[in-house]
């Protein structure tokens, strides 16, 4: 199978590596626990299998063991939680959203993505806004702030390469931001079952260089 690898593909956003690093840290911790426990299990299964003349040991437990294997996992999991808090805040805390982010309005509906750009005045919901379907165009190395809405049912904006996932809920605005680190074409998918056409709610996210982005904007504004 081509392109097969153990881990996720390399990310293309600024906070992507932080998320991937967190995944890796958890993988290492759980990996160690996995091998330790499973190998112990296999070892016990072989070592203590029934043999004539050998009796099991009559022991009900060990309080010290209980304390140790309660305390150590507790410390480990809390460490994971604390490490995660930082990354979570970085991505989701509204106060951490970059101030100079380009606003874009994405409206999810059955079964397409309607994307509205603010136009030359840089303000959404003004006369010079323009809309495109099923594509999102953003400049590299600049943050984009997506205001996400849904027209009918719950959808979810999934940009796998950017580690972006945010539900679009009808009746409320949700928000997500990201900053691409390289140019190229990437996928937009819907990650919340939204009906019969859920499978075909795909789009293309194009990350342009600064110059190309300006060109693209100009092309949209002056057809």
């Amino acid at each position, binding site marked *: *199978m081509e392109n097969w690898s153990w881990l996720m593909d390399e990310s293309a956003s600024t906070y992507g590596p932080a*998320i991937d690093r967190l995944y890796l840290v958890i993988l290492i911790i759980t990996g160690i626990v996995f091998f330790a426990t499973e190998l112990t299990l296999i070892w016990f299964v072989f070592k203590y299998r*029934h043999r004539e003349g050998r*009796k099991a040991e*009559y022991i009900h437990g060990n309080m010290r063991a209980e304390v140790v294997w309660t305390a150590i996992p507790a410390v480990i999991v809390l460490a994971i939680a604390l490490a995660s808090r930082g990354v*979570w805040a970085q991505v989701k805390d509204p106060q951490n959203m970059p101030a100079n982010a380009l606003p874009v309005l994405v409206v999810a509906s059955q079964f397409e993505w309607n994307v509205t750009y603010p136009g030359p005045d840089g303000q959404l919901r003004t006369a010079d806004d323009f809309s495109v379907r099923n594509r999102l165009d953003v400049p590299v190395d600049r943050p984009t702030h997506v205001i996400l809405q849904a027209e009918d049912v719950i959808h979810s904006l999934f940009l796998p390469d950017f580690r972006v996932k945010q539900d679009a809920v009808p009746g409320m605005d949700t928000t997500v931001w990201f900053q691409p680190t390289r140019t190229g074409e990437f996928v937009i998918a819907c990650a919340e079952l939204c009906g019969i056409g859920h499978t*075909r709610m795909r789009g293309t996210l194009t990350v342009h260089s600064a110059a190309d982005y300006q060109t693209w904007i100009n092309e949209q504004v002056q057809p």
Partner: protein
Amino acid sequence: MSTTAMAARHETAAEHHHELGFIRTYIFSTDHKMIAKQFLLASLFFLLVGGILAAGVRWQLGFPGRPIPLIGGLFSDTTAPGGIVLPEFYNAMVTMHATFMIFFAIMPLLVGVWGNYLIPLQIGAPDMAFPRLNMFSFWVSVPAGIIMLAGFFVEGGHAGAGWTAYAPLSTNPEYSGVRMGQVLWLVSLIILGFSSLTGAVNYITTVLNMRAPGMTWFRMPLPVWALFITSWLVLLAIPILTGGLIMLLFDQTIGTGFFAPATDGEPLLWQHVFWYFGHPEVYILILPAMGLVSEVISNRSRKPIFGYHSMVLAIIAIAFLGWIVWGHHMFQSGMNPLLGTTFMITTIIIAVPSSIKVFNWLGTLWRGDLHFDTPMLHAIAFVSMFIIGGLSGMFMASAPVDIFLHDTYYIVAHIHYVLFGGSLFGIFAGITYWFPKMFGRMFSPRLGKVHFWLTFVSYNLVFFPMHNLGLKGHMRRIYDPNQYEFLQPLQPLNTFITISAFVLIAGQLIFAFAFFWSMYKGKEAPQNPWKANTLEWTAAPTPPPHDNFPGGTPVVYRGPYEYSSPESTDDFLPQDVPPDRVLRPEIPREPSPLPTGD
């Protein structure tokens, strides 16, 4: 049947002044053991239904757009014309696979079967506190099951909004194309709630008030503890779901707008109500299996369960913590991120009591005298698969990592490692262990082991690769992944999983065959084939008669896990043997009064 057991049976039959006819014995029985068997047969049937639906889902993913072989022509034009699955039918199969498995297979297999069968027997009671309510509890689930099956045959097809039925997709036929199917889904689950609820009332009351003398709280076998705590979860969580389902039903039928944005309803309210039930629900689906596995591991290791008190506390801790983690299903829902942080912390804490249990199972095996009968194979598989399922949960517990993993196949992998690798192996352990008690015959050891190995291997081949699919961004509930270029390279993996799944599902036919074959042709079981300590084996004949204990209510002198005790020459020491009757090492060994089998 051994002569002693037959004699005991005749004694009891003579005591019964009235002969119960066929209907009162097999159809409308108030005997908890018969009700347990009714739940067993019904839920094994629904396990099959759920499995077939899984096969349908996997067919589309493994061989997208290709006609279903052999039976493809049987499908209607609204489901799979020419045998090619339509997207709406795919969504219905995904929804109904989960619905049937969770509500009609796993829950009744764990709580309906084992709650009913084991609780009175293991605590020394003649039956449940409310036998007629118990009968009602089973029979009310039958119309629920029929209604749920009927949904496949109505206009618009069956519910296709996922077993989680998120609004507004689930409330508005304009969006889903489904109306009657969703209504039937809702009505069925509302009715089924009464089955669960009345069962829980029975189990809780029975354990609280009907333990035999000497059966103090910390002498109860772990299955009883697990089922008791689970019953509290059922009692308190199911009514929450019922309230939510009623509101959803009203949105669908009388036009209320609880969850409809058009009328200022809140879609997220449905998610909160559903998951407030939904998270305790998943602990309902695992805790009893943990109890069964503890019993089997201790017995087949001939060793006391390691850390009995810790095991009880862990069950209680898991049940308690399970109420405050529900938001981790909603990390990406648009919920306030601060709430996300809170739920992340509570969620990650729940890993601790779960890992305590794993360590205690390992501690039980340590320096044990391990016998690898079929139940023990399943129990050990449970531990090793639960380790994987639990560890995979750590990733999604981290809210930022969940950004990437949510609604991908990584979640599907996690779910199935705990529900199949966990719950279902636990169920198989329970069925093969207590089969002789229920039916008087041993479950075929050979067929049992063939089934186990085939299941264990193919199951891992199905679900482990799903972690990889998820990491590559493969979404859930997606009819045609090949629409996406980034998913096309994963098609061979999907096909591999599908083929493994067919092997897995076919392998269960071995279990079905072994089950019925053993019932009639299995080796006759002695009273206590596993040389167990618990009352169902030591004080009740195999199988037990009405009122369970022909010798009267047993008296309990010790805990349930006194295996390999230095007090006794045997490697087991039943709970109800008085101290002065224990076969001590210094006393020359007399032949055991009851055949213990070998």
